[in-house]
């Protein structure tokens, strides 16, 4: 009996559950990581800490407080920098809630992306879902802006892509896991870009990372992102705008409801011919032209035609950029060679970028307008 009591008392102490507990205020929750080239030539890392006491409460607090603290240090490796954060802060950084990783393009010009993300893939605290971005601005400046809607710049950056399904000029987020996937598959890829304008963070095209060195190669302008996304086949929605000059009695907007790209790959005499077929479903979003009668047949043809050639043009433009200017396949087209021509792929995957530059690409777009809205103005 006495033994049982002893055990019960002992268990009381062993099962308290507060062992090694830490107050949430004492954990340095990191919202964002920024990586930049330091003045000494090595890596500078900005860690955005949450400062819980400064978060304005719902019952009207002082909203002028800044709820985050950026600690910026430089060093040779990221691990070293993270541990050196303790020089300044007593809160050990915790990356389980990391929202954004931001690279500066100048850093990626001199350092390899695969080396820079090693820590993020190796350490169990980082998640594969954290999105990655690239910017030409100073990372410190981006992380110091005060967004209006979100509390933290790091969250604001991540939220930029939330409308990627409504506007195809905004790239979808690329997670660090996908980035690592591209790297292990030895592919070039695009990092979603952003820029600062009048103290605001804006989505701005994408940066190309080359498969040869995994370094920054160049920029894809945001006006070209539509073409990129048609090729990547990740469009969920968007709009196609036609100005007065492009269409009779314009301007006019087609709202893209969905788009599907199918790929056809043929190899003739060692030369790859790729045919992209885009089927876009649209509805009339806005029409400033007053003569069209949408209730009678015949109004669609001109618009569909214009939309087809617009889509085809935007795609060919991007492919030209990839084939001629950068000579690297950042459009993941190799995927379709791998799937449809596995034999050719296994022979040519080593020098794929060269084959890609000489590849012939044809595009055929087919737009259908299914809807025109609830009322016509006449």
């Amino acid at each position, binding site marked *: 009996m006495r033994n049982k009591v002893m055990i019960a008392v002992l268990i009381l102490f062993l099962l308290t559950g507060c062992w090694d507990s830490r107050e949430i205020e004492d954990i340095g929750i990191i919202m964002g990581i920024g990586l930049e080239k330091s003045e000494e030539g090595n890596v500078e890392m900005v860690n955005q800490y949450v400062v819980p006491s400064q978060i304005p409460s719902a019952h009207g607090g002082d909203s002028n407080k800044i709820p985050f603290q950026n600690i910026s240090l430089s060093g040779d490796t990221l691990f070293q920098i993270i541990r050196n954060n303790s020089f300044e802060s007593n809160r050990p950084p915790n990356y*389980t809630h990391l929202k954004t990783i931001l690279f500066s393009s100048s850093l990626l010009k001199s350092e390899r992306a695969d080396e820079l993300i090693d820590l993020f893939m190796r350490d*169990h605290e980082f*998640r*594969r*879902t954290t999105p990655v971005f690239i910017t030409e601005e100073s990372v410190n400046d981006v992380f110091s802006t005060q967004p209006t809607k979100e509390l933290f710049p790091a969250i604001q950056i991540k939220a930029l892509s939330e409308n990627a399904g409504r506007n195809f000029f905004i790239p979808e987020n690329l*997670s660090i*896991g996908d980035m*690592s*996937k591209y790297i*292990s*598959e*030895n592919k070039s890829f695009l990092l979603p870009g952003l820029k600062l304008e009048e103290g605001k963070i804006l989505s701005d095209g994408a940066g190309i990372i080359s498969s040869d060195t995994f370094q920054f190669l160049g920029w894809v302008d945001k006006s070209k992102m539509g073409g990129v996304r048609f090729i990547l086949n990740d469009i969920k929605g968007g709009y196609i705008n036609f100005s007065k000059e492009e269409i009779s009695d314009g301007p006019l907007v087609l709202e893209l409801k969905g788009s599907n790209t199918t790929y056809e790959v043929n190899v003739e005499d060692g030369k790859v011919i790729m045919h992209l077929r885009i089927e876009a479903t649209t509805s009339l979003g806005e029409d400033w032209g007053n003569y069209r009668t949408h209730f009678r047949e015949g109004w669609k043809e001109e618009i569909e035609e214009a939309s087809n050639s617009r889509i085809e043009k935007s795609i060919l433009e991007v492919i030209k950029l990839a084939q001629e200017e950068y000579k690297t396949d950042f459009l993941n087209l190799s*995927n379709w060679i*791998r*799937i*449809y021509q*596995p034999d050719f792929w*296994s022979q040519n995957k080593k020098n794929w970028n060269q084959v890609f530059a000489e590849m012939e690409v044809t595009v055929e777009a087919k737009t259908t307008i299914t809807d025109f809205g609830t009322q016509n103005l006449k």
Partner: protein
Amino acid sequence: MSDLKQLTSLQFIVVFVSTMIGVGIILMPRPLANEVDTPDIWFSIICGALIVGACAMIIVQLVSRYPGHTFFELSPLICGRYLGFLLNICYILYTLLVAAYILRVTAGIIKNYLLDTTPLFVVIGSFIIVSTYLISNGVGDVVRFFQLYFPIMMFMFIALGLLSLKDVDINELRPVFGEGIVPPLMGANVTFFSFLGFEFLLIFSKTFSKQKAKSLRIWMWASIGVTALIYMVFMALTVGILGIAELKQITFPTVEMAKSIEFQGFFFERFELIFLFGWIITAFTSFSAYYFAMWKGVNQTFRIHAKPLVWIVAALILGVSLYPSGLTEVFEYATYVNYAACVAIIGFPTLLLILSFVRRQNYAE
């Protein structure tokens, strides 16, 4: 002593699925991707399952000639006292190796994802202590434990499968048989070992001594089938989410797959922790089966039944599992464990069956 007498068909399947699925479900994708190097690794599972099924049939044949006898009882019966003793010692060593291997890998995963500052021997030690408590009361308790936790295990697998489905990129699984059928066929030599555990037909034999060989055959194929199905789904998911090139580099692919589950705007993250809690039970059931087999072997070979001796067995497992200095060595030694497994689960039963035929022994009524 437990009240359990004979297993029903469902209990049988539960026991064998629980022993077969263990660390393989987390570790297998990487060596398999390295071996096959095409997205068809799911097909290797089918090939592996067929080979395993064939091996299991040898064991069923053996068991049905000696109903209710464990490996350790029938080996002296068939090849005499001295050779039988030798075989038993080898088999005990084999169970020791596998038990220690499972334990070490499990501890490695726990240390990597859950308890990174806890010393290794504490993780391993607590695992052994709990398992000792389970196995020291005999086969009935083991079976009941497997039964109790089987639904939890299945729930975890199904939950992970469903939650991951969203991230699957079907193009990663294409082209199907792009490099022919040979590479995935070769993968069978990796997948075979993830079915280890079926050999316990020779250990749990008391619990189905009254069954006919025919029903044992059907039950065995069903167990292997269920296991193969779960493995196939997970292989397809890991390739579909992580891609074959990435899979070759990830230490614990299935956990990483669970780690990539995220629903934006909806606070649902960190599912891998919940999954790991469920998975630890799977590893625990596999480990306990080997531990139990070893304990049974020591019991029956040396004819000693003093319960405190189980701690010696526990100490042996602890020692062996702590021997490798890091996970690199563990994975390195795994190849030798696999060779040992080939001998113990294909070599020994075949040898015994042939000898039994030659000596025209048959204990079946």
